[in-house]
């Protein structure tokens, strides 16, 4: 084995560059979003953009630390890190103060940490560790159960913290399981169940049940030759009916009023522009007003006049859309797509199953965040408050994404030393 001479050896510089570019875009976007003449210095640490610079500095140091640590450490201590994070999550549940109805923050002096952010990479590590064990076969029911437990445990605690958005992120691990051999039917069924859920919210229950029955009947008629198909169709029809029937229950009972409202707004059932629909509408106006080339840096009016709330955190994409227009949004989405492709490429070049699974975890988490955050800003998804990776204002989010990504970079730089 060669002796490692530098921590920067074998590093995937393309990923690092994408990371730095995204972080820079985030910083200047936060500056643009909360810019005011009284605090016009981008380094003013009394403002969010000044603070973000501190977070960025911290991130770079964290990145270096992550790279210095021996790659085998992450493999060896994956479960320990996971266990510690679970303890943190539980602690947050009891120690935190109520912030906008969520118990998600631990305060250490002036510092506020959101353990849910850090639980993501921990879960990715634990899942990678588990699935990379030699004796593991995804086809085994036991494997499926344990894998889902690893993912759902932190998600459940985060749900208890009343932070639905962060809990949903853990759903993205389904891509990892799929890549490791889970039947594609799981993906398809999941997709159709979600689709059916949305349709059931919009269409009357009775009508929908009749449509399902009719579709089932037609399918049975067409495929009456094979008995197996008929059984499958019947099962699907019954399952669909169950989803439809459960929708009104989930919608009325399980969802909280604000979540219900957000779904109503998305479905166009409610157009309360001053209430729940306000954010989305303002966000769309801001993005739409950007046009092709945008209004230019610091020239945005919509995002600066406090029309768009949470503009430096969850709705940061508005500022980009308004000031840089379609070209800016296009470039940003391409940057994300590039990063995702690069991570998938890294994943596939690994000999180590651990690194591959972890890489898919990283890609899934980043993808989910990007999908939900931008989808919400452009009115395609209900308002779910999760940050845009590397861009949104906030220390916990930026640091946790940095750790998530740099562990992968570290593992990847070690790939030539791995035999299996």
């Amino acid at each position, binding site marked *: 084995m060669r002796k490692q001479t530098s921590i920067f050896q074998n590093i995937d510089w393309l990923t690092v560059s994408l990371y730095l570019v995204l972080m820079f875009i985030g910083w200047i976007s936060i500056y643009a979003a909360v810019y005011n003449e009284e605090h016009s210095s981008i380094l003013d640490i009394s403002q969010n953009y000044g603070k973000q610079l501190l977070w960025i500095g911290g991130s770079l140091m964290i990145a270096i630390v992550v790279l210095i640590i021996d790659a085998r450490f992450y493999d060896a201590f994956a479960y320990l890190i996971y266990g510690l994070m679970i303890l943190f999550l539980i602690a947050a549940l009891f120690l935190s103060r109520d912030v906008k109805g969520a118990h998600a923050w631990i305060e250490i002096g002036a510092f506020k940490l959101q353990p849910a952010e850090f639980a993501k990479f921990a879960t990715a590590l634990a899942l990678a560790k588990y699935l990379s064990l030699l004796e593991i076969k995804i086809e085994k029911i036991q494997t499926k159960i344990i894998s889902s437990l690893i993912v759902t445990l932190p998600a459940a605690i985060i749900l208890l913290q009343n932070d639905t958005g962060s809990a949903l992120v853990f759903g993205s691990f389904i891509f990892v399981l799929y890549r490791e051999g889970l039947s594609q039917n799981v993906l398809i069924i999941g997709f159709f169940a979600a689709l059916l859920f949305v349709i059931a919210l919009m269409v009357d229950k009775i009508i929908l049940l009749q449509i399902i029955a009719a579709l089932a009947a037609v399918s049975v008629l067409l495929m009456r030759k094979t008995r197996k198909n008929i059984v499958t169709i019947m099962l699907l029809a019954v399952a669909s009916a169950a989803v439809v029937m459960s929708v009104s229950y989930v919608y009325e009972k399980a969802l909280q009023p604000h979540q219900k409202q957000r779904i109503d707004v998305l479905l166009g059932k409610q157009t309360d*522009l001053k209430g729940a629909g306000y954010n989305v509408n303002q966000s769309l*106006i801001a993005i739409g007003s950007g046009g092709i080339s945008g*209004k230019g840096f610091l020239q945005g009016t919509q995002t*600066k006049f406090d029309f768009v709330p949470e503009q430096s955190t969850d709705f940061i994409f508005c500022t980009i859309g308004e000031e840089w227009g*379609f070209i800016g949004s296009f470039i940003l989405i391409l940057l994300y797509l590039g990063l*995702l*492709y690069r991570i998938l490429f890294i994943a596939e070049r690994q000999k180590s199953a651990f690194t591959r699974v972890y890489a898919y975890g990283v890609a899934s988490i980043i993808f989910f965040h990007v*999908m939900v955050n931008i989808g919400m800003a452009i009115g395609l998804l209900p308002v779910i408050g999760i940050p845009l990776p590397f861009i949104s204002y906030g220390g916990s989010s930026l640091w946790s994404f940095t750790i998530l990504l740099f562990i992968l970079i570290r593992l990847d730089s070690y790939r030539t030393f791995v035999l299996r």
Partner: protein
Amino acid sequence: MNPNSRIVIAGIFTVVLLIYLIRLFYVQVLNEQYKLSANNNVIRYVTDYPARGLIYDRKGELMVFNEAVYDLMVIPRQVKELDTTEFCRLADISKEEFIRRMQKAKKFSRFKSSIFEKQIPPEQYALLQEKLYKFNGFYVLPRTLRKYPTKSAAHALGYIGEVDEKLIAKDPYYQMGDYIGISGIEQSYEKELRGKRGVRIVMVDVHNREKGSFEDGKYDSVSVAGEDIMLTLDAKLQAYAETLMQNKAGGIAAIEPQTGEILAILSSPTYDPNIMVGKARNKNYALLSTDPYKSLFNRAMMAYYPPGSTFKLASALSAVNEHIVGPGTSYPHSFVVGSKSVKCHPHPPIALEGSIQYSCNPYFCNVFRSFVDNKKYGTSENGYRVWREYIMSFGVGKKIGVDMPHELPGLLPAPEFYDKIYGKGRWKASTIYSLGIGQGELGITPLQMANITAVIANRGYYYTPHIVKAISGKPNTTRNLSEKHSSKVAPESFTVVIDGMQKVVEAGTARVARFGNTVICGKTGTAQNPHGKDHSLFVGFAPRENPKIAVAVMVENSGFGATWAAPIASLMMELYLTDTITRPDLEKRIMEGDLLKDYPLPGTKIKIAPPAKRDSVWQETEQPVVLTENKKQN
């Protein structure tokens, strides 16, 4: 491992982000709906304030309308460099004031609009409007001010003001900048008058000009104007009564007996309601609230006056109904309590009818004693209790339920009150006899006096006095106005008392009140007052059959009832019934009479006198209850 899974995952990532790109292309490039960029437009939420309901009198004469004014608003964040000198000239403020207001606005919010200058009159607005394009961040918001063309009925109409934080916390309907009725019917009919606020979403270009509504007004809500109200007031009668009462203090209420509709209600001194609007309101309010004559105090509904001799009517009716006295009952021409006696001026021997005509004090002290100490009630306490129930059935000693705020119940002590002072079972009619002639611990508002008169005019019942006849052209159903309140006195008991009232005007104390052929029934009163001259009172109704108007007039510190109150009531009746005035000399004397010079000014403490020992004759007693301001005017 699925061989294709890596491609499927990459495919999903790609497809989702591709969909987003398409959506973004649609939102940012294709769709004009969000296209505000060309002019750097900004969206502005403009509150569309509803026009407050108009108020008419019973004949349709306009009494309250809205005049357009403009609030100059500022959004500090949008303010760019401007020609301060020109701006200050247009807004008519000093440069220091400009700086102060900008700082205040910035302190409130840099992004939200705040009011820079309130209620700019239309002429100034015209000048400002032309140049407004030069001043980014400033815009005007149309508002309204109340205007009162008849300049009368200030207390009844009340006034409006802007809501404060306390009110907003109490009623979530209100937002900063909203108007709310603070007194009078502006307050009691606030819900009907205020209308419904709307909001317009407009686009404003970089030159501060409105470029039309956002998405063709799809999200706008239109304001709904408040409902118009028709009052029961007769504006002409109201204004006339106010003129008669000028330079006098007191209260008047006139009611249409058959319906309970208030034809006129006023408190004097009054003020021109037009001074209580706009920028001058605070200054004028401060002036009025320190006014020694208490112009803001609504005497018609809040002042407790001893009703004096006018109260003999209710007292007589109760006794007749209980068969304690009859038309033929007579008493010795004095009322003796211990060593003291109540005496009267000389007049021929009289029975009940004559006692009213001549307003004989000993007679009514005796009637009161016959009632309260009557054996059929067992004790004097029980006798008093029955008597009190009779009086209360005329609407005394309780709130009548008029549809105006701040009505006070008046004062009619419960037996327990006297138990406390004298001890249980240790008082009887001779202890509290002055009640029988409308003195003592009695406090009645002019509105209640008018209501008693309406009960007599109706021979036994009243409808709740009210001031709003119709809302949006439909009869007022917001209050229970159709319930007939019967007094405990049966209709047949009224005849003898009404006969006496007719004699009062024809040949008794109120001959001055006669006019034309109208049969007027009335009763004068001269209530004792320790703080100055006696109060002058008159209650009456006309015509005797099928009465159209019942009036109570109270003139403070003016002497005999026949001197001031009776002529005022009579002139009002004449104007209302015949629409002409046949006695210009009388009218002139009343209008020119200045009684305020005798008014007890501050320093003279006005309060309810402590219940004195009643062993002195009534002429010498301390007289109670004159004027108490029981509620803070707000």
